[in-house]
């Protein structure tokens, strides 16, 4: 293989510590440790996952709720370090997990664009110069000097998407964010992602929309209980999932 994989997971497992069994206060912890009752319950969200993405590939990830899809996104996005195994991501990553994390209602549209863009790892100056384009793409040019607490949820979603996709990443991780906004905006955002794919961005597409996944993806992985239950051609995997869940 001449080109190295943009995303490479080797034996990745991830455990959350459950707050149910976790002492919530130091006082409680002190009492419980005196009684030798401190124990952590672990919830394994991903188990021994190995995955190698090809450059420019669109990988669909499907599976029931609680299969570990969101956790997988966060692992690739570097938000969660794996409990076991190794994650390597070559190139810049844009993870569209709940767009607009870090938006502040008291700040104006412009200020939020700069703050959010910088949170995503860009230079503040560079983001600042892109404000007009971002605002225009989101259709919010007239609302840039207004605190965003007066924005509607649709406007917030558009602003988040516009900032997150303003720069072409090497690896894009998306979930249902594609289904925000009205039909026109959905169309527009889908086209923007298609442009990225054409330009060589590798995409991890996490979705419950099986038709969309079958339509867009080059390969599909089925996740269940945190394990890889099969990876291969979209038609085959989607069909297998449909059969087992109807």
């Amino acid at each position, binding site marked *: 293989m001449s080109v190295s994989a943009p995303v490479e997971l080797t034996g990745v497992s*991830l*455990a*959350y*510590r459950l*707050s149910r069994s*976790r*002492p*919530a*206060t*130091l*006082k*409680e*912890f002190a009492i419980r440790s005196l009684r030798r009752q401190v124990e952590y319950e672990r919830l394994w969200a991903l188990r021994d996952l190995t995955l190698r993405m090809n450059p420019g590939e669109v990988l669909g990830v499907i599976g029931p709720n609680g299969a570990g899809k969101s956790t997988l996104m*966060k692992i690739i*996005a*570097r*938000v*969660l*370090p*794996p*409990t076991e*195994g*190794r*994650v*390597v*991501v*070559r*190139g*810049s*990553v844009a*993870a569209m*997990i*709940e767009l607009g*994390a*870090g938006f*502040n209602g*008291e*700040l104006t549209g412009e*200020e939020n664009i*700069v*703050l959010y863009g*910088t*949170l*995503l*790892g*860009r*230079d*503040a*100056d*560079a983001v600042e110069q892109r404000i007009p384009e971002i605002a225009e793409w989101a259709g919010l040019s007239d609302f840039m000097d207004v*605190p965003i607490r007066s924005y509607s949820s649709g406007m917030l979603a558009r602003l988040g998407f516009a900032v997150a996709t303003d*720069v*072409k*990443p*090497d690896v894009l991780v998306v979930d249902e964010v594609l289904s925000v906004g009205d039909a026109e905006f959905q169309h527009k955002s889908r086209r923007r992602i298609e442009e990225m794919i054409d330009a060589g961005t590798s995409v991890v597409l996490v979705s419950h929309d099986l038709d969309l996944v079958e339509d867009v993806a080059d390969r599909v992985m089925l996740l269940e209980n945190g394990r890889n239950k099969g990876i291969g051609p979209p038609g085959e995997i989607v069909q297998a999932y449909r059969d087992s869940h109807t």
Partner: protein
Amino acid sequence: MVTNSSTFYDSDLSRRPLLSEFRNLWEYRDLIALLIRRDITVRYKRSTLGVWWTLLNPLLTTLILWMIFGQFFRFDTGDVPYVVYLLSGILLITYFSQAVIASGSAIVNNSGILTKVYVPPEVFSFSAAGAALVNFMLSLIPLAIIQLVNGVGIPWTVVLVPLPVIAMLALATGIGLLVASAAVFFYDVLDLTGVALQLVSYLTPTFYPISIVPAAFIGIIYANPLFSYLDIFRNFMYGGEFSPAWSFVYMFASSIIALLLGVWVFSKSWRNLIAVL
């Protein structure tokens, strides 16, 4: 590709040595500056009194303490008017407490971002402490005015005030990161920290002159690292002289140790922290 985040990620390399932890922070300096600005604009946008709110609290505390200890008990602070002695002490201790609490709670407060976007988490602790620093700098204005009005004046050593102030930022952030590491697991840690900070502030001669401390207890005052910061700060701010060398040694050593320890413990525990946020 316009990005200043590293474009290669290997989870095996994330048990990074201390040095790269700081390099990471340097790379995110834009963000730190923006977060400080966010904290400050948001705080001041919400109230009509704006900036004055931040100053009101220490000024009112000073007024009350000045009445009690300056007028009733008539504490004697030698050459310097009691109000200058008092306000300088209250301001520095308030700054310290605010910086520790702010950087200690920054991780929990920003968990909504940290669980969705990759940002070195220390960035939030540093920027929260940085916002406390900005507030403190603003609060030096009324102190300077009172010094001028009182005839104490402002000596040239005022240009060295940033030394104890920056050292204190490092100390507070280091302690804040230790608090933050624990606060993610136990939410009462922040309350305990508040109590501890109050205790430490009483052990620092903010409102009482050091001359009234009985000889048997003076060792405790000197052992409190905050004393060295306060002594140096006061001498630079209005005394126009240098504190003894051991004060400087104690100040810089405690700030560097606290910072390194905080960053190290935090980076070690991050793996566990994020899994419960």
